[in-house]
């Protein structure tokens, strides 16, 4: 399978001496939906900045679909679409003009750009706002406008830097659905987000970056399988005064009608239900206490805690 993005030994040392990236290696295959996660200041935005040439690298090599960003600058950039974290469009221009102009910067004539802009604005629910000044759009609309803008030249690799920050749940879900469809059509997507359930739900592969190094790089499935235990919250029909004794399980009474049960890797949930049934306890609902990816993320990042000075 073709490699959409290849990063080798990428280093970035800022003028103030801060080493934001300490020689990272990363590979994203074509068609992947990839999560690039990390705490604030870990180096995610610096990495994205270097890929799209807004940040100059100190050392290393980056290829986009085999095109080196230094030697095949133009070809590499045509393959790439970027949705930055902060709004960076001209506020006084109209969405339609913003998209047509962006296409122009990629050498696409207005006749082609207008058709693409119309299609994208309609797909992202912005068609009715096409002639309004961009500053008048809501936060969610502005985010969608930036996605449309990044796609107008039809890149094969799309990088989204926290695209759903500050977006309400309904809008977030509609953006997820749009991105899933885009990915299904063949666009490789790299996503950074602080909503870990978003990454878990959308992405197949993941890298966690912390203090300028890649702390984890694997498939989502492999990463989640590293979890040794999960805590389930069980809501019971019966009320309890103390936690029941369930052989092999650690149980805490968290409320009159609820239990927290710790399940080790390899333990059977069926067995847990059998033990509860034996004590005439009936479960009305069940959920994870914490997001599984969030738990792993916290563990991985906690291992690197001492130096928290890095910023990006």
């Amino acid at each position: 399978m073709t490699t959409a993005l290849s990063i080798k030994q990428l280093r970035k040392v800022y003028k103030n001496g801060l080493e934001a990236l300490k020689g990272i290696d990363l590979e994203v295959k074509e068609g992947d939906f990839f999560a690039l996660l990390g705490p604030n200041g870990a180096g995610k935005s610096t990495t994205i900045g270097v890929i799209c040439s807004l940040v100059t690298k100190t050392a290393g090599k980056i290829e986009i679909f085999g095109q080196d960003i230094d030697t095949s600058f133009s070809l590499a950039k045509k393959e790439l679409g970027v949705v930055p974290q902060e709004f960076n469009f001209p506020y006084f221009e109209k969405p339609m003009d913003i998209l047509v102009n962006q296409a122009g910067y990629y050498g696409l004539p207005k006749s082609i750009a207008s058709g693409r802009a119309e299609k994208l604005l309609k797909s992202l629910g912005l068609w009715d706002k096409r002639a309004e000044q961009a500053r008048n759009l809501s936060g969610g609309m502005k985010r969608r406008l930036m996605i449309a803008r990044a796609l107008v030249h039809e890149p094969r690799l799309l990088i989204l830097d926290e695209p759903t920050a500050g977006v309400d749940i309904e809008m977030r879900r509609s953006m997820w659905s749009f991105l899933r469809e885009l990915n299904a059509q063949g666009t490789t997507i790299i996503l950074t987000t602080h909503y870990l359930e978003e990454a878990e739900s959308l992405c197949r592969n993941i890298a966690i970056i912390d203090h300028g190094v890649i702390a984890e790089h694997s498939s989502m499935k492999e990463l989640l399988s590293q979890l040794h235990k999960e805590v389930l919250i069980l809501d019971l029909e019966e009320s309890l005064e103390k936690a029941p004794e369930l052989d092999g399980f650690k149980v805490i009474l968290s409320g009159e009608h609820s239990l927290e049960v710790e399940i080790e890797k390899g333990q059977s949930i069926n067995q847990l239900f059998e033990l509860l049934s034996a004590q005439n306890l009936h479960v009305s609902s069940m959920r994870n206490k914490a997001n599984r990816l969030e738990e792993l993320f916290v563990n991985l990042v906690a291992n690197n805690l001492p130096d928290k000075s890095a910023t990006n």
Partner: protein
Amino acid sequence: MDFREQLIAFITIVRKEIKRVLRIWTQSLVPPVITITLYFIIFGSLIGRRIGTMSGVSYMEFVVPGLIMMAVITNSFTNVVSSFFGAKFQRFVEEMLVSPTPNYVILLGFAMGGVFRGLVVGLIVTIVALFFTDLQVHSVSITIAIVVMTSVFFSMAGFINAVYARTFDDISIIPTFVLTPLIYLGGVFYSTDMLPEFWSTLSQFNPILYIVNAFRYGLLGITDVSVGLSFAMVTLFIVITFIFSLRALSSANRLRS
């Protein structure tokens, strides 16, 4: 990007810049025309009547070319400086920086926006001047060539100012403390023949003196300096500001981290 794609990118930037100038016409086109009209009334008509002739023509005739050129210079400069700094400040310059558009196309696109505003304001001011005096054009080619070249030069200079500016204060320092004194001391309102020798010699180092005199020669056929030297100097300034602008745009520390 092949040549056709670069041309499309260039046209896109120019179209965007022209739209901007026209969208904010109350800020970009009207104020300079009002200011220069006041100069015509006060310096040309009211005070000029008492001054009499200068370099063999009426004071109003003498001052008109300088005032037209003053409008062209300040508007070319301020258009690019405010537009590019605005793009930098609001970060939408990143739209271009992440695209394959080469730096020289970005530079030329913004410069053409400055040239458009400079020439439009210059044209309006010229039309207004016709209400105050008869304008005879001595050499059409020299007049057009010098006004376009001047506009290009100051658009590039505005671009450099915008790239290096970090705050809104930085984009007003050059126009206030450099451009305005150079224009006022560049022979717009007087002939350098009137100056004492020391000041006359010092004026030879002012680039605007050459520009104003070449334009005055194009319109009236009178000049304090050599027209050939004027064109040579403006050409040199364009080359220098073009190279400097391109270097500023490419350098990592002004637009990129």
